[in-house]
């Protein structure tokens, strides 16, 4: 793993920088802190949308990221924030380290591990942020490592699954992973040997483990429901992966091609259990950009191992007695990697967190505008920043999942300036709209009678229905 530490160090530095200096690129953190505040104040987790929205108040909601939200609220500013954001970055770096560790356990050479860890790092790169799904990355990697373990320690995977289910609904993958590995193990052994039995037990117990959260069995039920949820087509993270995604093109795709060329058949000697998991996640990664990091964390160790076996350039170096230098390097490399990463992080702590880069300014203008407002955001993620504003109720925000299909249909009609866009705004009683400047909806509002610009800057414009008072 000696070269891999350098790779991990570079990515860790970048993760720290992103986490601390650019914490909220997608607007989710705003409503998650608001959720955390509610949990802290009421000591209960809301189970339905409230008055913060006017389009779907009372709709059932399962706030799967409740624990992350509570932590984000507790550590909302100052040193606590830096520690929280730094911990998320450390988790992402830890996921890479666990993938590299798994590759080493599988017998991959240091060079192959370093290369595949680099691809995995690139695959994590675009999705990284202070986000609940990022916290799931190290848990996936750790869960897989524990599935490989022989003996009772393997049952620690159940604790991982339980923690995972309190942070993100992707915990649903835990029993699926264990069941897939168990099926592969049974296939390899041509029957239920001790390993297959242990993995089957883990798969069954993992179902119970992912119910160890405030929502119980509703969490896996919710996660399964997401698979067929049509709203995914409107969410960029769920779009089908393509070469425009840097993380896919330069991270997951090389791993996928490597797996296709090297892992299959007899040559790679990849276990059937690993191949089954790989195939399942290959299917997922081709289906949605959201799965790029998970696929990379799963594929990297397996491709590294096959690369070691199939390509002479990556063959393991001849074993030799460790020199003094090698022994020092074994400790120095990880320490140096983390030191570089920490240094970058500490440098960034000195600076005040910047604006989110989202629609903060028009939202502040709306907040200053007298009266209560019903807000439509052309990008629903922007409205996440408005959740909890005292005089603003949103049409649709970054919580996304609980909003009914009818709300989504209306959102698409207006955001894409469909034929019925004005009727829809009227019917929904929207009196404030935030759009990208010069976007189609912006042009349409400029042409439409009954609307005036309440705020504008280089990027955004806030449109108010005539009669709504101008802001300060």
């Amino acid at each position, binding site marked *: 793993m000696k070269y891999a530490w350098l790779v991990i160090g570079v990515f860790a530095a970048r993760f720290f920088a992103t986490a601390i200096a650019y914490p909220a690129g997608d607007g989710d953190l705003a409503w998650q802190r608001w959720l955390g505040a509610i949990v802290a104040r009421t000591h209960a987790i809301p189970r339905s949308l409230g008055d913060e929205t006017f389009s779907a108040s009372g709709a059932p909601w399962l706030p799967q990221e409740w624990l992350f939200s509570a932590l984000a609220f507790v550590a909302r500013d100052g040193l606590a924030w830096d520690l929280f954001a730094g911990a998320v970055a450390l988790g992402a770096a830890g996921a890479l380290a666990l993938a590299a560790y798994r590759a080493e356990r599988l017998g991959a050479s240091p060079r192959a591990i370093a290369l595949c860890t680099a691809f995995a790092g690139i695959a994590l790169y675009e999705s990284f942020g202070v986000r609940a799904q990022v916290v799931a990355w190290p848990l996936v990697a750790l869960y897989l490592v524990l599935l490989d373990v022989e003996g009772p320690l393997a049952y620690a995977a159940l604790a991982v699954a339980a923690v995972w289910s309190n942070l993100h609904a992707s915990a649903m993958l835990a029993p699926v992973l264990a069941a897939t590995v168990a099926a592969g193990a049974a296939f390899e052994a041509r029957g239920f040997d001790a390993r297959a039995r242990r993995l089957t037990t883990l798969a069954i117990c993992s179902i119970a483990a992912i119910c160890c959260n405030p929502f119980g069995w509703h969490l896996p039920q919710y996660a399964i429901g997401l698979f067929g949820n049509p709203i995914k087509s409107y969410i960029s993270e769920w779009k*089908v992966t*393509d*070469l*425009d995604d840097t993380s896919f093109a330069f991270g997951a*795709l090389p791993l*996928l*091609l490597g*797996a*296709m*060329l*090297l*892992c*299959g*058949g*007899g*040559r*790679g000697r990849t276990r059937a259990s690993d*191949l089954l998991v*790989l*195939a399942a996640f*290959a*299917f997922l990664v*081709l289906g949605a950009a959201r799965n790029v990091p998970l696929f990379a964390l799963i594929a990297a160790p397996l491709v590294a191992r096959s690369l070691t076996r*199939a*390509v002479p350039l990556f063959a393991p170096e001849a074993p030799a007695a460790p020199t003094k230098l090698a022994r020092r390097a074994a400790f120095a490399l990880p320490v140096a990697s983390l030191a570089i990463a920490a240094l970058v992080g500490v440098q960034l702590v000195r600076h005040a967190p910047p604006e989110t880069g989202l629609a903060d300014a028009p939202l502040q203008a709306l907040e200053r505008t007298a009266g209560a407002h019903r807000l439509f955001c052309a990008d629903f993620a922007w409205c996440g920043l408005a959740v909890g504003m005292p005089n603003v109720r949103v049409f649709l925000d970054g919580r996304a999942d609980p909003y009914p299909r009818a709300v989504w249909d209306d959102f698409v009609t207006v955001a*894409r*300036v*469909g*034929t019925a*866009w004005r009727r829809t705004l009227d019917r929904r009683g929207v009196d404030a709209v935030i759009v990208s400047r*010069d976007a*189609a*909806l912006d*042009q*349409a509002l400029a*042409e*439409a009678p009954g609307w005036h610009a309440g705020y504008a800057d280089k990027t955004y414009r806030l449109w108010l229905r005539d009669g709504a008072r101008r802001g300060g």
Partner: protein
Amino acid sequence: MTTLASPARGGTRARDAAVVFWSVRAFVYAATAAVAVTSQPAWPDLALARRYGALVARDGLARAGVGWLGDLWAWASASGGTAAALAAAAAAALAAFVLTETRARRYGGRVCALAASCVALVCSLDALRAGGGAASLALCAALALVLDRPTPRTPLFASALALVWCQIAPDGLLAPLIATAFALGARFDGERDPKDLRYAWFAVAGCALATLATPSLGAFPAQAFAALRVDRTYDGIVALHPIDSAPTAYRIGFTAAVFAFLAFGTGARLRVRDALLVAGGALYALANGAGLGIFGVLAAPVLAGAARDALGLQTVREDEGRAGEAAVVTVAMLFAIVLAGAVAPRADAALAERPYALAQHAPRSGSPHRFACANVDWCDYAVATGPPGTTALLDGRLDRASAADIEAQRTFSHASHGWRALLDARRVDAVLVRRDRAIATLLALRGDWRAVAQNDEAELFVRAGGRR
């Protein structure tokens, strides 16, 4: 008795297996022909190729004033009428399948070859339209077959195939790249003697020279690269991602190929040639879904060999099957011709229902129109079927478009800032757009454009105050 009965039972089993195999094979061939005939023809491309093909035939390249990307196939097949175009597509698809299967058989025996070729067929499903696409697949398969076993005649045959390919479709540009993969394989896979290596590199040179032997001469490589649409220049103008441009092939064919490679790998030993063809084909397919068929053709033999190795099957020589194969192909082709004759009238009738057919509703009085279309291929049809002199902001011949034209199209189709002024400046007086797009709503908001025709999908606007 038992000892005498066993060979007989074995013979019966072998005969049964052969019957099953040939039945499946005949079914697959017939299905290939049927898919090619019944796929919706790429009418806009055909119409444009036919029109400009006729111009070139009449006036010569220079006087016709059009670029040349070798849509000879499309023009020739469309000139013979719908039935001929469909039958030609079926012939090309069958040829592609048979050639792919023949090469795959060398790698993996007949059963694995048939199975792998079926994966290639599914990868090609969205490319089997009457036009250069199906012919490209056949030429690609033929080139790979020729390059597979270098002989003194390989450079000549490969160059000839590349030459034809370049006259038919822009992906003829891939010919030297494919030849290079084989040549690198000959160099690094250590299977061949130095003579083979020489033939392989001569083939590369011949294919490269063939790309310069089109009516476009030295301009072909640049034009063809643009027409391949593999870079990001055309983002937001044309649908390139396989899920949009070849959804069935991507969801089923590509996914099946990925699974098969994960299961079987690439054979007993990783060969540079196989790695380059599979990885290169996959990259091309992901960059532009239209390349999924090429990926299938190149990857199928590797897959067949890998499956045979992984499953431990024996390869059996079967020269005796040639006659049967010819018979099956002939029957499938006859079936395709009959089917094409039956399908053609319905295909022609369905043309009127296509969204781009609205272009014919543009008022015919006055000077010819200048169209802007949200989907550039629709403008192919508008230009091809309009009166002489009809032009477009941008049509499907993206290789001929300047950067300014491409930017103008992007501004228009996304209704970005300044699109109205752009339509004025470019003297556009007819706009053909999808009804559910923002641009349609925005056009209807003001009185300077009026809708003159619409169907379920599209709407045609013309300037309310006449021409500018």
